């Protein structure tokens, strides 16, 4: 249970732009254990998508280690990388842009098998049929093109492709955010079912707290390139420590008119600052309702606030 399958250690990634240096991911450490789902929550610009690309080694980190089953992918050679990539697959946010518009669904699902030289022609075809069945699609869809499918069907194809090489870890980057609500439930159910069926670990990245709460075992909250709080799901909702976590929870809409109207106004001022030249000290201090003078100067370190519960706040 406790062996990490994916471990990020003090990963840093900056981008130099004409406007200045974007500190997209700044000293982030995370672990995903075998069979576990880690939820990663944050708003746009917090660095969660960069983190996903770092974890998949689509981008090299500036510093830090990305350990997959104990091997540092940041230093791995081409061959090792290819082998590990088969064991860690990704589901993208926009299912249409994640599928090659000029390939049939069957061809798209066959590609990973071709690259890894798995099976002959007939075996590959059987595997494609099996994958389509896994994600609840009819076999005749294999002959169609991505633009002929609905959004939900496309995302199912994206999931089927991620499963093709029998990965141990699934990285879902806003995998249900682009879907209509009625379809979102179908795709979430599919992910939940497959996770149980194949014992998959998952890094589930989303801006939607309600969805993360439903699927994750543990949750990490990111703000401006840093993890500000990390805790097991129930502990986090029972006692959120970081003011930003609390603000996120308070901002998530509730589907109950009486409760929604009884809510106090959002304890949060201003908007997400730019990740270029982030605020000094605690990066959240300009928006924090509780900020003290020291928050402006001292960078709060992540410290233990409970079993497996870490938080980076001077006041928590």
């Amino acid at each position, binding site marked *: 249970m406790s062996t990490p399958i994916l471990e990020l250690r003090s990963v840093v990634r900056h981008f130099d732009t004409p406007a200045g240096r974007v500190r997209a991911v700044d000293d982030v450490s995370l672990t995903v254990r075998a069979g576990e789902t880690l939820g990663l929550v944050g708003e746009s610009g917090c660095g969660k998508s960069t983190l996903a690309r770092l974890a998949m080694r689509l981008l090299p980190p500036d510093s830090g280690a990305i350990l997959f089953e104990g091997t540092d992918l940041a230093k791995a050679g081409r061959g090792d990388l290819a082998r590990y990539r088969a064991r860690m697959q990704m589901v993208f946010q926009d299912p249409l842009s994640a599928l090659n518009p000029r390939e049939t669904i069957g061809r798209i699902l066959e590609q990973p098998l071709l690259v890894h030289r798995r099976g002959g022609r007939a075996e590959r075809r059987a595997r494609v049929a099996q994958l389509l069945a896994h994600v609840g699609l009819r076999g005749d869809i294999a002959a169609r093109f991505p633009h002929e499918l609905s959004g939900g069907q496309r995302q199912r194809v994206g999931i089927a492709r991620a499963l093709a090489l029998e990965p141990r870890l699934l990285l879902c980057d806003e995998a249900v955010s682009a879907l209509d609500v009625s379809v979102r439930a*179908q795709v979430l159910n599919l992910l939940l*079912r497959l996770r149980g069926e194949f014992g998959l670990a998952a890094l589930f990245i989303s801006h939607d707290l309600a969805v993360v709460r439903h699927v994750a075992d543990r949750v990490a909250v990111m703000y401006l390139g840093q993890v500000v709080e990390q805790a097991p799901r129930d502990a986090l909702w029972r006692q959120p420590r970081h003011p930003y976590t609390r603000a996120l929870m308070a901002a998530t*809409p*509730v*589907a109950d*008119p009486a409760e*929604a109207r009884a809510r106090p106004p*959002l304890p949060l001022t201003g*908007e997400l600052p730019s990740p270029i030249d982030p605020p000094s000290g605690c990066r959240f201090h300009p928006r924090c309702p509780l900020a003290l003078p020291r928050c402006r100067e001292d960078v709060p370190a992540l410290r233990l606030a409970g079993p497996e519960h870490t938080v980076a706040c001077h006041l928590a």
Partner: protein
Amino acid sequence: MTASTRISAVAEGPAPPLLQVSGLCTTFTTHAGPLPVLRDVSFTLARGETLALVGESGSGKSVTAASLLRLVEAAGGRITGGRALFDGVDLLALPPAALRAIRGGRIGMVFQEPLSALNPVQRIGAQIAEAIRLHRPLSRRAAWARAVELLALVQIPAPELRARDYPHQLSGGQRQRAMIAMALACEPELLIADEPTTALDVTTQAQIMALLEDLRRRLGMALLLITHDLGVVAGVADRVVVLYAGRVVEQGPVERIFAAPLHPYTRGLLDAVRLEALPPGSALPEIPGLVPALHDLPAGCAFAPRCPRADARCHATPPPWREGAPHQGAACFHPLPAGTGRHAA
């Protein structure tokens, strides 16, 4: 002139609604033939009220808004029937000049993507001032002052400075605030907001919704809120209209819609956003199947192929509108009995 004085001037018995849409039909012409995007959409909006138009993609919610201001015509759509009485005047039959006076005048509009709705090469203040001068005989200087005032009204800090900014210099939330300021330029009686927070982050979304609600109350305007997110609706709407495949399937007061929906589709949408009521990791209640393609709609109720309550009649004939409770109705042969709005927690 405020909304309340206007009401007292006309009020005799119950006040007539500010907006009364009846039998609105809009069709888009495509290669595959005519596409009926709206089929007989009817609803009313009282002065000062917030009405939420809820639906998924393809439901026709945005086309409804665009039809009211006849903006669909530029996009290849045609209004083929119905009326939209705004303070007694049919918007759909208005000559172009009169319609232009109402657009941006008595009716303001806020779009989903403020970056594409704002002119990228013109300063924010100048855009707002221009919008004002289209409708009001103000000098440049006075219009600029009014623009700054409006930016302050939508709680943009340092409005004199921000008025000199270009759209790309503002954050997403500030851009949306600027869009709202522009829509408010002529103190509209009705503000149409089409997915105003969909492109924004969760915390910004909460701030913008709070702002819209606050402005509506202070300026006494009516708000037509178009959204796919029932969660957003709960906090702000007075009444809710649910659209599915171009038809109104249910409408009613917000408390009723959330506590005792009549239409199985409304119920399905509610279940989909009430994740917190379920044990974590459990299977979610789902609406099976897909939203039907508009060029291939079923003969009967459009929701029948996905509906757990559907029978032969639902597949064969479109269900008529029925009042299921006071002020609440649905187009369904088998409405849900009262008290089934929440699934067991």
